């Protein structure tokens, strides 16, 4: 997804006014490009109309893969690859396989979803993120509007609306030629 060059940024200092503002702004049909907060705000994804995350489905798939890998590998080793008679015990001792199957289920699921999470969020060491405002990781709740294709009048109306909705600061920023 190409990031916009010119943006309007509204900053709020309280999550309640911020959530109200999102509701009112979206009701007016104005598209919010991005929303940045210093911590997970409850109800934010609903206010923005986001779909539920599907990470848990991915987690289940990875977990099931782990169980299958563990059970089939141990079965293959103990019955086919190198069957050993341990004091007359069965070659396919299912109860003995349970602890390792469980551990590998957890291992696969945990690594799988964490990597999925990083890929979906486009997070990796050394990534240079675009910093809309340094205070969004401190104490400000930001809404970013893509103003590349907006007229001056439209930009002004967004800024006015943000101020009406108790934004503590509203500003325009141009990222043309800036990396990230």
């Amino acid at each position, binding site marked *: 997804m190409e990031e916009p060059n010119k943006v309007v940024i509204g900053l709020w200092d309280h999550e*309640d006014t911020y959530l109200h503002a999102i509701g009112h702004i979206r009701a007016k049909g104005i598209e919010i490009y991005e929303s940045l907060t210093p911590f997970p705000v*409850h109800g934010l994804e609903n206010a*923005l109309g986001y779909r539920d995350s599907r990470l848990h489905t991915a987690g289940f798939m990875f977990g099931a893969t782990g169980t299958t890998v563990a059970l089939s590998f141990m079965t293959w080793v103990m019955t086919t690859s190198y069957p050993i008679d341990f004091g007359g015990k069965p070659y396919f001792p299912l109860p003995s396989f349970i*602890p390792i199957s*469980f551990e590998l289920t957890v291992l696969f699921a945990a690594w799988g979803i964490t990597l999925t999470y990083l890929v979906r969020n486009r*997070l990796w*060491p*050394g990534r240079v993120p*675009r910093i809309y405002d340094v205070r969004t990781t401190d*104490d400000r709740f930001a809404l970013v509007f893509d103003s590349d294709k907006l007229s001056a009048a439209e930009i002004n109306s967004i800024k006015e609306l943000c101020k009406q909705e108790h934004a503590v600061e509203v500003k325009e920023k141009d990222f043309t030629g800036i990396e990230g």
Partner: protein
Amino acid sequence: MHAYESEFREPLIKGLDKNYTKITDDLVAPTERNSAMWWIATLFFGAGALFFVFCLGWTVWFGIGTWGLNKTIGWAWDITNFVWWIGIGHAGTLISAILLLFRQRYRTGINRAAEAMTIFAVICAGMFPVFHMGRVWDAPFIFPLPNTRGPLWVNFNSPLLWDVFAISTYFSVSILFWYSGLMPDFGTIRDRSKGKFRKWFYNMMSFGWMGTAKHWQRFESLSLILAGLATPLVLSVHTIVSFDFATSVIPGWHTTIFPPYFVAGAIFSGFAMVETLMLIVRKLFNLEDYITVNHIESMNKIIVLTGSIVGIAYLTELFIAWYSGYLYEQFAFYNRILGKYYWAYIWMMSCNVITPQFYWFKPIRRNLYATFLLSIFVNIGMWFERFVIIVTSLADDYLPSSWAYFSPTWVDIGIYLGSISLFLFLFLIFCRIFPVIAIAEVKAIFRTSSEVAKTERAKAANSATAATGGFVGLQHVGPLDKDSKN
């Protein structure tokens, strides 16, 4: 909008001067200060960690014979230390995962440091079985790797192998849990950094975190799934550690209550170690407003619960040994109490069963000096528990002519003390570079559980009830309604 919390509950973030910026300032401050105390402590424990490496080198060079082991007692301090460290490593995931699922807000103050502690404790734990192998260069073959001997695989029937899988899974999942929570906080430090290197470094560490709504949505989903996975995991790890003993046929080890008993003991010792460290950290880094007496009291309640479970397990073991009518089992426990290791048994019983009972009293639960002292006793007691189980059961085996006594050599002692140094060294580095308290998570409970929010709500309720009369907290406000039955 915010989760409901009773106004009677003590605030988890103290101080009326708090707001989001103040929280950031306070929690990032330890990474921005240089202190002579920190350097002295780090160099001291760093030297201790080097001695640990030296003793391990000595062991590898001259062999396991440099330890105090003999033909009868083939497992002693090494496995004691291993189980002790793994137990300590249990609190971190318990605090972050189980308390997350139970929606205990006090976890936010202590989870980060407890998770770090888990990781360092598991590193220390892992060293003992690996170096006990003697030929450490063959250590990778504890995993089922393809090889030219058949391939000859590992024995999937062996609890020792289950342990390999349990502990390596636990270690790597703990790291994922810890680091995924750290990324947003590294972003916070990056955005307030001045220096170019510092900015670059924390951006690397934060993986380029931005804090968009989608990031946070997935973040919350990820933490919940990891918590759901880590909860059975943490219970399974010490269960499997206990299988190392419980599936054997040695009297005193062959006990079916080992899994729950070991898990309770692990949580017990883990919380004690969290308290020992957090009481020092909150003082040194001025974090008293975020790790409050309320946090300490909550942990002490868990200690009295798990300590009592451990106490009941000790008594159950004794009862079952007698009730079994099995001579060797009865002898093992008789020998444990009255044999040559009676002193270790006394340490174990007094530190693990008696000391936590003090926590039934609220003044002691809320006394930081008492808590610090008792937390150290718990850690000593839990070390002796493992020593008693392992060494007394082996020392006097089925054949009286081979009965023996274990005395540690300087290498045993050096490795043990060295592992404590390594642990503290890693923890000190963590305190200096990483945010010790989860910044974003503390901010997320600010509107619910802080003193500021509670005061604001009380004021609002006050003005609302002032006209009609009613209760704000325990305080009655406004005109009294004489006709009311209440």
